[in-house]
């Protein structure tokens, strides 16, 4: 039996892309090069790189602890407008380049730390929904029949709800909090991954090298995970990159509604939510977290666009 398996593996090794298409630049390297040539890819990568640096270096960059209430520490008021010494703010006043918030905390420090949370939200939710969505889609597409029908109808049910409404419903049942918000956003973005994976698997599984593996007697699971899935991943990678953007937006939306991150956590959506009534009296409290969310989402969208172009063989 083990002999048989090794034989299959050895035989299969001979019919990989290399034997079929000749020596090639590794796919990911090629994609990377193409991505760097695209304007949207460049800008997207730059913005995300910038956000990642901010997130990692937050403790160094931030002048204050994000949760520190400055009453009694400094002579500042609540919701004080930004004070930047370089731009003519009196030197006697402490510098808060994005002002202070409703609890007299430094908004700039909170924005920096907020990058950590938002990136974490984006990556965690997409990872979770990616793993389960791809699994569901791959199984459904590859095995077909009843498995396909049941799994995909279930996905259709989830897709039938407006995503944010469903997320709100899930959080309402589980209770507000950042973990539950992550879970809710993961669940609502599952069907997209499942569908795309299924479509991709359906087209890949009819290709000749899959038939070849079948002829050689490879097991169905082996064919699925070693042959079909790796070759069906391209559209999923693009979708996942764009998905990070949507997840960040959805999670910020939940936090804005008071269902996601809870105070005093420095989360951009929560910051927006607690300042929404002061939009006229203290616009800086809405402006900076709003800009931060917008930039991050834009970054991931541009990167996703760039990746799609770079991965699309027809465009090259």
């Amino acid at each position: 039996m083990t002999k048989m398996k090794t034989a299959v593996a050895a035989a299969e090794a001979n019919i990989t892309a290399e034997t079929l298409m000749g020596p090639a630049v590794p796919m990911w390297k090629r994609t990377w090069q193409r991505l760097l040539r695209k304007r949207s890819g460049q800008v997207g990568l730059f913005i995300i790189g910038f956000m990642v640096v901010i997130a990692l270096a937050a403790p160094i960059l931030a002048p204050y602890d994000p949760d520190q209430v400055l009453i009694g520490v400094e002579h500042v008021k609540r919701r004080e407008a930004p004070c930047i010494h370089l731009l003519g703010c009196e030197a006697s006043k402490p510098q808060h380049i994005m002002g202070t918030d409703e609890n007299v905390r430094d908004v700039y420090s909170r924005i920096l730390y907020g990058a950590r949370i938002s990136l974490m939200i984006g990556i965690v939710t997409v990872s979770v929904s990616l793993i389960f969505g791809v699994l569901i889609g791959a199984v459904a597409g590859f095995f077909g029949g009843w498995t396909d029908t049941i799994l995909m109808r279930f996905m259709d049910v989830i897709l039938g709800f407006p995503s944010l409404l469903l997320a709100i419903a899930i959080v309402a049942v589980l209770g507000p909090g950042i973990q539950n918000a992550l879970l809710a956003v993961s669940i609502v973005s599952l069907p997209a991954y499942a569908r795309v994976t299924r479509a991709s698997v359906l087209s890949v599984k009819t290709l000749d090298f899959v038939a070849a593996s079948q002829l050689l007697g490879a097991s169905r699971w082996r064919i699925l995970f070693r042959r079909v899935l790796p070759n069906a991943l391209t559209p999923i990678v693009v979708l996942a990159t764009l998905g990070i953007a949507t997840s960040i937006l959805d999670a910020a939306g939940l936090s804005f509604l008071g269902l996601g991150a809870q105070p005093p956590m420095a989360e951009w959506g929560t910051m927006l939510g607690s300042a929404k009534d002061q939009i006229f009296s203290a616009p800086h409290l809405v402006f900076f977290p709003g800009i931060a969310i917008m930039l991050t989402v834009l970054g991931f969208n541009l990167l996703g666009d760039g990746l799609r172009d770079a991965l699309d063989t027809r465009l090259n």
Partner: protein
Amino acid sequence: MKVRLLGYGAALALGAVLGSPAFAFEGTSVSAPSCDYGGTIKSIAATDELTVTVTMCKPDPAFSAKIIFPVFGIQPSEHIAALGPEGKLLDDPIGTGPFKLDAWNRGDSIVMSRNDNYWGKEPAYDKLVFRWNASGAGRLNELRAGTVDEITNLSPDDFDAVENDPSLQFLPVASPNSFYLGMNNTYKPFDDVRVRQAIGMGIDRQRIIDYYYPEGSEVASHFTPCSLENGCAGDDWYAFDPKKAKELLAEAGYPDGFKTKIFYRDVFRSYLPEPGSVAVEIQTQLKQNLGIDAEVVPMESGEFIDAAAQGRLDGFHLLGWGADYPHVTNFLDYHFSSNTKNFGKPQPAIYEPLAKAATIADPAKAEPLYAEANDEIKKLVPTVPIAHGASAYAAQANLTGGEVPAFGAIRFEDVNPGKDTFVFMQNAEPISLYCPDESDGESLAACTPITETLLRYDPKTKKIGPNLATSCDANEDSTVWTCHLREGVKFTDGSAFDANDVVASWGAGIDAANPAHVGNTGAFTYYAYLFGSLMNAK
């Protein structure tokens, strides 16, 4: 024709007989068969044309304070008997007040016109219009645009803007309220009185007022605001003393503090205008001053109120109380009686003097007992009173008489908008204009200019004054209250006001077996709440 004429004549004759003073007045009454039903009212009887006698099941010195509530407004007994059983009173109020209902344009406005039969001072304007807008910014916009003359509940953020606007006037609301930090003595470490005392003196309450409350708010010296008689009996609350607090905490075995939670609901109230920010502020102070690590936990409003009332919150909770009627019992008895679970196990040292005081009608005689109770609250710290919050209305600068009394709606007959129409804008549309079965402030405000109560809070003397009754007096132990009604008052339908109208109006509310006890939902919440229970309920 003949028959009709004859009938008319007979009615006239009967009317003349009924109307003559010689005809004996037949007083009606409502009563419970016994006091076992759990409420505080035994019977309400019209003892003569202008006297109503209310017999209580147990002493209730706050009776006269409770009946100023608009739910106890008086309508003609014939009107209630005719429309009440069919539930048709909801948009057809007849009263004795300065205005009468003209039209209720659903979703838009309620229009009232001056009542020429009004017994009091004639209003300076002809038409009173109620409008509503749920958004604070929206109300202020309308006021600025000049489409309305006065608005309720100004957003705290707009206080400065209105005060600095020469075309507007800022009208502070004196409504007594109290914000407190609750603890539950059945959970560790709050079971140790030293821990609670440490928290009582370890929070800088002045700082919370300075930073998080609008101008006009005060640090709470006692649980009850001082504007209520005997509210401030006894010693003032502890001064802020983090050093002593730390010592107490160390004595109790928590030199480095402990871990706990701060529960709250994110709902705007005058006593707590910014719950989220104040929760974080208290969290910060607990950490800084006492080393206590508290997690901030916002809860859904209904769930939070239930959990607090049943004593299920094992950390701190941020809650408050707005006065329903001007009596100290409304604050103290509600929170510290022998069956309240908000703060865990009720403390006899607090509820015993309160129970004694609640039988005494004379405030001066009750004072030492309230002082004793307040001092025990300070000593045992079931909760830390923090603030009495301010709120405000706003009006056009040229308007006079728009001041907001501590209890009830503004005095519409005293307003002078300087023109024929006064447009008043509140938060929401009234639910109905049959106020005995409503409990929201918006409905009650709209009933106020139409139906009147026997007594009324007088903002000038800051005491309860006469209205449809010239006085209501209690016997020695406040078990029998006698109200003497004003003479010569007429309803807007022309009928004369007498004691039977009071019995009919109150009877429809308190007596569940009364045919007119239909109302809107049939709950008659305030009758049940203020007097313990509805009588004759099945």
